[in-house]
């Protein structure tokens, strides 16, 4: 800061603390609600956590909320994990390969391949809902982990990120590897992928969040409850029409749905911030 003004500093901290509180507030109340009985919550929300934590979380994890037709949360959490891991790993794998092809080879239709990948940026699921659903249905991939993940793993962003990174890898390393007897695949495995580790990890964090937070896609391709993911499943509990939702259990579900990505983002904050800003470059 250019000059010292104690009053300003105090104001700044106040604003920031207020901001942070504003962000934590909904989560805190959700947590409080998730530790009381349904009756207590509906009478007016207490300000401090209650003693129903184990009971409530135990109920949702093992039984789900039967009245709302949602499966046990344990299963939905598992589905979410499978889906987001498959999406993150799948996107990274196929994008690494395509970036490698585009950067390190010269071949007919290279530019066409590049633009084909680029176009996916402009076609999010949201704009081609019905026909994509029909393709997945036609391939018999409804209600399957493959259907939940494979259609989402094409990635222009990841491809571009790796392409950009590969361009910064010195050519002399490639020369040295060739003299050391490494062909393209060996070079890719022994040199390029290990060098991409940081980018890879940063991207993994972002793509994991992307996969975990998918909503519309699982909604389209799953009708069988045993394939529900937690983020789309929660809607089944909250949106029960005219009735009041079972708030204490819905909030326990919400907490469980947001906990894994929040833990990932906070434990890998540096990688996440780096990745996010790189991806948008």
């Amino acid at each position, binding site marked *: 800061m250019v000059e010292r003004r104690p009053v300003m500093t105090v104001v700044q901290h106040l604003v920031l603390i207020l901001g942070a509180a504003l962000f934590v507030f909904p989560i805190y109340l959700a947590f409080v609600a998730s530790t009381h009985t349904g009756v207590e919550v509906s009478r007016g929300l207490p300000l401090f956590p209650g003693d129903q934590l184990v009971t409530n979380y135990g109920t949702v994890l093992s039984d789900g909320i039967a009245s709302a037709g949602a499966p046990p949360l344990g299963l939905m959490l598992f589905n979410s994990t499978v889906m987001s891991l498959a999406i993150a790993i799948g996107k990274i794998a196929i994008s690494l390969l395509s970036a490698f092809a585009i950067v390190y080879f010269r071949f007919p239709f290279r530019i066409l391949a590049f633009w084909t990948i680029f176009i996916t940026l402009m076609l999010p699921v949201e704009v081609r809902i019905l026909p994509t659903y029909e393709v997945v249905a036609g391939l018999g991939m409804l209600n399957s982990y493959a259907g939940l993940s494979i259609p989402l793993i094409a990635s222009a962003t990841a491809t571009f990120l790796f392409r950009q990174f590969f361009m910064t890898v010195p050519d002399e390393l490639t020369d*040295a590897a060739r003299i050391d007897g490494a062909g393209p695949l060996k070079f890719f495995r022994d040199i390029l992928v290990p060098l991409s580790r940081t980018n890879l990890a940063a991207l993994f964090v972002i793509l994991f969040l992307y996969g975990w937070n998918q909503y519309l896609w699982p909604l389209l391709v799953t009708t069988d409850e045993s394939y529900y993911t937690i983020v789309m499943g929660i809607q089944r509990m909250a949106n029960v029409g005219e009735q009041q939702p079972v708030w204490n259990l819905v909030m326990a579900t919400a907490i469980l749905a947001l906990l894994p990505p929040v833990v990932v983002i906070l434990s890998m904050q540096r990688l996440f911030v780096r990745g996010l800003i790189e991806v948008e470059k």
Partner: protein
Amino acid sequence: MAPIAIDGVRKVYPGPVEAIPNLSLEIADGELCVLVGPSGCGKSTLLRMVAGLEEITGGEIRIGGRRVNDLEPAERDIAMVFQNYALYPHMTVYDNMAYGLRNRGVPKAEIRALVDEAAGILGLSALLARKPRQLSGGQRQRVAMGRAIVRKPQVFLFDEPLSNLDAKLRSQMRVEIKRLQRRLATTSLYVTHDQVEAMTLGDRLLIMNHGIAEQVGTPMDVYHRPATRFVAGFIGSPMMNFLPGRVAGDGRGVHLPGGWLLATAKARGHAGRPVTVGIRPEHLQPAATGTDSDTITLRTELIEVLGADTLVHGRLDGHDDTVIARLPGSLQVAAGDNLPLAAEPGTVHLFDETERAIGHV
């Protein structure tokens, strides 16, 4: 160990840009040949063609008598040291040196022995577990050399290996490379733009300009008998002085600015035609008087005292370019003095209009 033969080699880049029109060179077994020239002269291209990193448009390259034009770099039994070392940043020193051996399927125990041996030679034994970023510039340079020698290849290729080091380290590593190459007696091709490196390291030099071999010869050859004006100007520091001259009508001498006449019969074939006269600064000596016709008078303008030597910058009558003389440090001279100078016999070079050497006087 093997000789290298470069036979009428040509390189054309798409464009088309002809980088090397036609170049031939034989390098004897165990010889260290330096490719030297200004940047963009094609020396790196030539080296990379020998390495197999660049396709050969025409001609043939043989290593140990075997045609290698269509062989992959790894199949040519060569090793290369790069300008930026090109060490694999994620591998330890040991792994950097072992990588090429592993790719060749050398047994583990043998790799261990070879790497240990190379590390011992280069003083890297204590650093084998380190990553490149934990090493100093000189150490990285040694690892790059280690990676080259560990395979005991037939040929070493050096692509400006010292240009990333500071001056002190550079001269130190220069000596080490020379010593190592003598010890291993491996045929070597060494690219540099630094003439000091070229002179001190090379058994022979190939001086390149615009993709053409200007001269091939020992360091003494190219210094004392430059074949072209380009070579004369490129080798030596400070640079050779060039004076415009005209061969006398009777062919018995060359007229120079300021009325100086260089008596020689070597330019007889060019009677009446312009020539360029070259004299190295270190070959100009103080003369007794300024009256002889083979003595030039320098109007001194600037004196640079180096200690052992003194560089005197000045001008001749009738000639605009600065002339430099390297004189003994004991000489007392001040800016503005008129200094009579004469050239040592046998050190004056004559170049014709095509810039080829006519003779040395």
